[in-house]
């Protein structure tokens, strides 16, 4: 899909696709909502929604092309499974807090899951949302951080030194667990837990997971595949 469209953002898609699959196949009910705050992983979300039958092959074939709903970052007002268009970082957690509060005020059932990137926690609005969510005890809200350790122009730790994000979340009053973001059973187990307030799950992931020449390489935040790279990636993944 990315190869045919000649677009990148593959690294962050591969770091998050395992947890997106677990969420959509094992966790989310029709009452629940998922917000992709790291909108640049739209490709992984579209593929996940295809895997649960919500999108068709024809939809994916239009990814990143003209006259498509599958833009590089999710589009607004389209399908229920994508409640909000995202793409600018630092919006999704506030939106999710609003959804959780709206459900709480009206007694509407359902949980809210929000996926952010790690570098995204450099955005100040996320910390506003964190204060708000904890203060309002939004216990239907789960924050998932795709901690792949790399952002657009450097390693997250070198750019802004966010470690330990877990300690920071805990100091704000948000229970936080760390999990291997590619261990499907561990992810399912941690997603199923409940909390008396909002909670966070920091998923330790590998950018470019599953493709040797991409894994933990910063440049795969942006790069698109050449034909040779595409063939090699397919071989490694056992695809056709």
């Amino acid at each position, binding site marked *: 899909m990315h190869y045919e469209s000649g677009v990148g953002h593959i690294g962050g898609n591969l770091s998050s696709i395992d947890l997106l699959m677990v969420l959509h196949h094992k966790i989310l009910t029709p009452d629940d909502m998922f917000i992709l705050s790291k909108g640049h992983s739209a490709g992984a979300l579209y593929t996940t929604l295809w895997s649960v039958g919500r999108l068709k092959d024809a939809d994916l074939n239009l990814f990143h092309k003209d006259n498509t709903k599958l833009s590089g970052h999710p589009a*607004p*007002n389209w399908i229920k499974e994508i*409640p*909000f*268009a*995202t*793409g*600018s970082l*630092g*919006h999704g957690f*506030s*939106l*999710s*807090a*609003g*959804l*959780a*509060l*709206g*459900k709480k*005020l*009206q007694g*509407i059932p359902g949980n809210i899951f929000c996926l952010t990137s790690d570098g995204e926690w450099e955005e*100040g*609005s996320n910390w*506003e*949302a964190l*204060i*708000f969510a904890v*203060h309002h005890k939004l216990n239907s809200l789960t924050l998932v951080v795709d901690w792949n350790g790399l952002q657009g122009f450097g390693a997250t730790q070198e750019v802004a030194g966010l470690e330990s994000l877990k300690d920071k979340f805990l100091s704000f009053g948000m229970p936080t667990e760390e999990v291997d973001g590619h261990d499907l059973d561990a992810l399912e187990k941690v997603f199923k837990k409940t909390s008396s307030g909002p909670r966070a799950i920091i998923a330790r992931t590998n950018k470019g997971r599953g493709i040797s020449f991409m894994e933990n390489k910063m440049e795969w935040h942006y790069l698109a595949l050449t034909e040779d790279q595409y063939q090699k990636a397919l071989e490694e993944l056992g695809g056709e």
Partner: protein
Amino acid sequence: MRNTFCQTLVQYSDLPDFVFLTGDLGFMALEPLQKSAGERFINAGIAEQNMVSVSAGLAKTGLKPWAFSIAPFIYARPLEQIRNDVCLHDLPVKLVGNGGGYGYGVMGGSHHAIEDYGILLSLQNMRVFVPAFAVDIPPIVEKLQNLPHPAYLRLGKDEKPKDLEIKLYAPWRKILEGDGPTLLITGPLAGNLWSNLKELNKQKRPKTWVLTELPFDEKTIPNEFMKDLRISDHLIIVEEHVAHGGVGEMMSRCLLLNGEAPRQFNHYCAQGYLSGYYGSQNFHRKESGLTVENILKKLSN
């Protein structure tokens, strides 16, 4: 206007889809609403970006959020949240800014909002309401409560003279008859100007209109207004907003698209901070030429 706004919202606060957020502003003004709305009154803290995105989230669950702050803090700090989360999704979030224009006077430039509706009207699906008189607040709030789109309400000081009788609310209203130029005013300056203009002899007295809802286009300008404009062949626009994105520019575009151009056009608008000194709302209005005396001079030319 803020108190009338609060009193009006109290009447809506028991609706099942009502919710009100403030960015920690409204002390000594919003307490009645806080009391009547209960858990639906949320002090979202000094965090406007979060407040606007939270409002979008609330709206997505079926609520009709009102988000309040002083005017510059509700449109400038969270502009991207308004653009992406509210406007792109066409959600019924109502942004309310107190102290439009130079309303906060000597509090300084950080507290002024002289480019608010120009900026907001450049966003998708956004509507703007700039009431001139406090008596217009109840019908506007009713309209906003039922409007299924984003909107911005710019509150100011009520400057309506006691002897000015206001007709039933409408987006365009004529408040003074005369044989002079056609004068279009947006915002509370209308009351102040009316008191002086009504004393002029009929020949000089402008046909004075108040405009409250933006944007408008060449199809929605009332025929009566266009008739006045054709007769007078002289248009004067007054607004406490910079020229860029303001009513003057909007009207000019409409007239050109209609193939019409009055012989004379004057635009009185906010000029920023020409001297670099700060003062009351009237100080800044004066520096921008937004005064009765200045406009009267133009009428006698």
